[in-house]
């Protein structure tokens, strides 16, 4: 089932076309939306929330039409903006509770869900202190909490790791993963850091200049290649086994590239592991590493861009 579906979605501003006949489906799970600044990510989010009309084309969120069902969509969708949006002079508890009320929750439910949600995003005693004194990481958690407090079916997260240090970034990515795995809420997350999306997302949508460049499952992007990386240790007599192995593999007619102590062997079929294992076994060297290399999203992205 798809949580978001757009069809020839177009948004033109007087000077620029922000979305250009974008047709894409976002399935349940965690989906990354990748694109350079100005690629149309923010415009797409606004249209999906029913806040800005599309010039042409159609879009559905959770099966509802963005043109006519804006309020109903916004009742079931959470949104975490990229920029700072928190009042400095109230506590996280007060603020998130107010936002829960603004989503239509009765006050008792708002209070309970605020406490639950803040705990889930990892805010404890500090939630009673004014937000002005929070670290960036804590502020991002409050922003995420206000997007989750009304128990949406889908959250739109705009650059949630912006401004975080490496540890904070890892924690936020784990949290985003859990939003889907533990809470059962689908996620559309924008980022310009491909490595992050690789780790977090089930699917990746790449947009550029308002056009769809690619939409695929992450595992397709990072599918295995026919290249095996082989590393061996020294021979019994102390000499380096890498040369020996290189020669042995080459004799089997396999293309081998040497990269320091690593050998990259290209085998086009399933027999890769067996062939290499047998070849190395015959030499009497210890096999340290034998792994199939994977693509990274970045490589695909670079290739696509080069081709455009």
């Amino acid at each position, binding site marked *: 089932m798809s949580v978001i579906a757009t069809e020839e979605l177009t948004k033109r501003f007087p000077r620029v076309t922000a979305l250009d006949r974008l047709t894409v489906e976002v399935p349940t799970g965690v989906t990354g939306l990748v694109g350079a600044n100005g690629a149309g990510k923010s415009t797409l989010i606004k249209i999906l*929330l029913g*806040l*800005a009309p599309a010039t042409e084309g159609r879009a559905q969120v959770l099966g509802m039409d963005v043109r006519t069902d804006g*309020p*109903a969509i*916004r*009742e079931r*969708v*959470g*949104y975490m*903006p990229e*920029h*700072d*949006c*928190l*009042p*400095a*002079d*109230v506590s996280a508890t*007060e603020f998130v509770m*107010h*936002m829960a*009320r*603004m*989503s*239509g*929750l*009765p*006050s008792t*439910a708002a209070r309970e*869900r605020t406490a*639950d949600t803040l*705990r*889930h995003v990892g805010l*404890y*005693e500090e939630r009673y202190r004014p937000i002005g004194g929070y670290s960036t990481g804590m502020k991002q958690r409050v922003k995420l909490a*206000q997007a989750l407090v*009304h*128990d949406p079916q889908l959250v739109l997260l705009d650059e949630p790791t912006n401004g975080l240090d490496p540890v904070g970034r890892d924690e936020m990515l784990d949290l985003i993963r*859990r939003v889907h795995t*533990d*809470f*059962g809420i689908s996620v559309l997350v924008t980022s310009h850091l491909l490595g992050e999306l690789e780790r977090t997302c089930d699917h990746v949508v790449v947009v550029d200049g308002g056009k769809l460049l690619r939409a695929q499952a992450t595992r397709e992007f990072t599918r295995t290649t026919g290249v095996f990386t082989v590393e061996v240790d020294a021979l019994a007599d102390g000499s380096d086994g890498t040369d020996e192995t290189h020669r042995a593999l080459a004799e089997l007619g396999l293309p081998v590239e040497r990269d320091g102590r690593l050998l990259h062997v290209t085998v086009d079929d399933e027999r890769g592991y067996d062939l290499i294992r047998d070849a190395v076994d015959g030499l009497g060297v210890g096999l340290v590493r034998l792994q199939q290399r994977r693509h990274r999203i970045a490589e695909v992205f670079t290739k696509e861009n080069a081709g455009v």
Partner: protein
Amino acid sequence: MSESNFAGRGTGVIHDIGYRHYDGRRGGRPQIRRALYVQSLRGVFGLGRAARTKILPFTLASFMVLPAVILVAVQMVMGSTTPVLPFASYAIVVQAIPALFLAALAPQTVSRDLRFHTMPLYFSRPLTYKDYVAAKFAGMTSALFILFAVPIVVLYAGALLAKAPFLSNTGDFLMALVAAVFLSALLSVIGLLIASLTPRRGLGVAAIITLMAGSFTVVSAVQGITTGLDQQGVAAWAGLFSPMTLFAGAQDLLPGVRYEGVAEPSTAGQVVFAIVLLALIAGGYALLSLRYKKVSS
């Protein structure tokens, strides 16, 4: 999340009961509008917020009531059965206090959401800019109405205690409350419109106080001079140019209400004053909506 994630988090043990979905009622726009209205009204008086935010509104509100208490005491001592001051004139006589109240509290009602860029969070929820404007306007208007109504109630209670005629006083009392609704709406729309134009609270405060006090001072001066020159007509029309004198002229249309000011308009003039007052409220509300329509897009 497993329990181990909480390890070393300090004091008590927190038992994670996992994520719970919410299957309860969702109120939709009417309930959200009401919740925002109540929150805005309470916010004006600092209720549900830090103690220091309550000081200013409650100080001003007590200054607003104090003269009424004194007037009632005077009436009691004199043993008079007619109120010292007509109920409907009270707000105009103490006009500096509501002006200060508006200047201090209208900006904090709307500018916080602008200053902290919180508006996108509202608009990513079911409510629209129309709901937001309606709730904020109703909240500020109600707060001002409470500010005006309490001393009028005190005066009315004092009049009844002094055994003033019940029927005529009750009529005057109700008319004064009706007038207070219009005055509250007028001041509210002026204050919110100015405050919504700047995310900076201090600027909003200064602009509102300048407009309220400045226009009142200029109009009073013009009225004083023109009355001295025996130009009663000019003096009366000058009242159009300050919110308080505009209201004073317009409310004279209500039965039994008569403000004894420096220069009051004729009956035809009162109609013009009333039309201008209503047009200002409607026009100001439309501009406020336009302002937030722009914010929401």
